């Protein structure tokens, strides 16, 4: 492989990582704060993109269509909170997972009925949505996703550090019961967090659609699975870990395709995940969160 192609492949990997990041951040917020493996996230990702696509098809301007997509994603995520987490807080961690899967099936089949199994063409924002520098092609959508992911993460950490609701979220992450005793309004903090998760997933879905010019009912599957892998590799509950994990998964995937072929890529990506879980389960940036409980 020549240097130029390798450089392009590195760019491809980092850009793909940019797509994985946001979804990994959404997963990590749900796990880190609520200990909830929220399987509806790939569905919300898809809902955001589909809603934007429908709005554009109906002749809405871009800004309005994106707003519609974000609104749909936020509402979808709020529904998930309302019908899964709120009723099951304090029970075994795998229980809300079941309902969140129920929502994934629900969202996908509603879209399937509405718009079929076909992948739909998403209109291009501009004819060539790419930056060409020194022989390299950089997808603007991916670049925006990458930058936006970083900005959103910095904003999210700021939100968690400085605002009242952020402090509430952190208190809930420490211990939901203690947080309630300390006067955190858990009935407001948790829905707010879900809406945040929904918006992150929605943004991710819309950027995905702008970048790959396609939407479909099952568009969240692959990216959701890779997002989970990215979250774990970075360290569950660690937002910066999700960023790092997203980049790493993107690079591993692209480089393993380039060097070993596509049929080895999944072995490399998920093999790395499995190995990490055996060797260092807390992830690259995760602290040792496994503390013996107190009697």
């Amino acid at each position, binding site marked *: 492989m020549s240097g130029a192609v390798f450089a392009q492949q590195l760019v491809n990997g980092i850009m793909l990582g940019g797509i994985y990041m946001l979804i990994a951040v959404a997963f990590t917020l749900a796990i880190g704060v609520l200990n909830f493996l929220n399987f509806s996230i790939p569905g919300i990702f898809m809902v955001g993109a589909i809603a934007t696509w429908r709005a554009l098809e109906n002749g809405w301007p871009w800004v309005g269509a994106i707003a519609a997509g974000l609104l749909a994603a936020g509402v979808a995520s709020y529904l998930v909170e309302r019908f899964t987490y709120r009723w099951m807080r304090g029970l075994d961690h795998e*229980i809300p*997972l079941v309902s969140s*899967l129920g929502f994934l099936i629900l969202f996908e089949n509603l879209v399937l009925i509405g718009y079929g199994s076909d992948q739909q063409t998403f209109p291009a924002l501009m004819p060539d949505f790419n930056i060409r520098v020194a022989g390299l092609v950089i997808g603007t959508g991916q670049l925006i996703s990458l930058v936006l992911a970083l900005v959103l993460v910095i904003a999210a950490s700021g939100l968690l550090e400085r605002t009242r609701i952020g402090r509430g979220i952190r208190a809930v992450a420490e211990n939901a019961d203690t947080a309630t005793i300390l006067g955190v309004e858990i009935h407001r903090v948790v829905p707010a967090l879900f809406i945040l998760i929904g918006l992150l997933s929605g943004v991710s879905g819309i950027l995905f659609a702008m970048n790959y010019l396609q939407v479909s009912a099952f568009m969240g599957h692959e990216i959701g699975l890779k997002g*989970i*892998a990215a979250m*774990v590799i970075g360290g569950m509950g660690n937002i910066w870990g999700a960023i790092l994990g997203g980049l790493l998964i993107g690079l591993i995937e692209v480089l393993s395709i380039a060097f070993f072929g596509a049929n080895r890529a999944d072995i490399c990506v998920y093999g790395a995940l499995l190995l990490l879980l055996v060797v260092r389960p807390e992830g690259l940036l995760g602290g040792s969160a496994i503390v013996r409980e107190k009697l």
Partner: protein
Amino acid sequence: MSGYGEAILVMLAINIVVALAGYLPLAAGQLNLGIAGFMAVGGYTSAYLTSAYHLPMGVGMAAGAAAAGLLGLLVAVPVLRTSGIYLALATFALGQVIQAAFLNIEAVGAAAGYPVKPYAGFTVVLSVAFGVLVAVLLLSRTRFALLLTATKNDPLVTELFGVDVRAIRVAAFSLGALIAGIGGALYAHHYSYLEPQNFNIMLSVYIALYVLLGGTQTVAGPIVGAAFFTLLPELLRAGSHWRFVIFAVLIILVMAVRPEGLITGALARRLRFGKRREAAS
């Protein structure tokens, strides 16, 4: 019996077997999201041995079960140092790796799939599934089952009462993997064709759903869950497109009303106790 009814009962039997495979680790509090991978190992092993070496189907199935169980043991020992969500994610990764690996093994057809010759008809599938069910039912009446529940309930206290919690977890996980191997072998020999694509993450997820929806506290739970997931879509067939939507809504509602599953230990105890009281009076 009708042909359709037989087909549905076969599906139900295989689904019950794999639900039991998911139930054993879940009874000890571990979510296995790689059951499809263990099914694939069991199915492919049996298919390969019976096709390439012309071993009898029973031997093939036993070997498939053993291979899946052994793999479960190999994975469980390192991964079960941690617990909960990490195991779920490790099994998820493992399932993906196994699926991807079978896509690369040309000896069993890789992406093209692998035809399976010895045919396990209605009677064979139902008998094997019945055997597995009886074995798990017997197991559920032992001290081992008591320790599974205790491990899930409170691992620390269980350990303080002299139980090697990790050994219990490893045993539950490996036994589950072994049963998944049997399920995979039944699938292979009944449906006569294996494709790596069939053993995907969504299959694992659905199997976990059977158990969680049915309830993880008694053997009846996974059976009810498997029946719910097998029969309900058939009953909703008339609704065609909408059947999966209705199905999803039902999952959400059931979990909202009975978050510990349809069949809980307390319910089972109430039924049993009620019976005893009736008998006494």
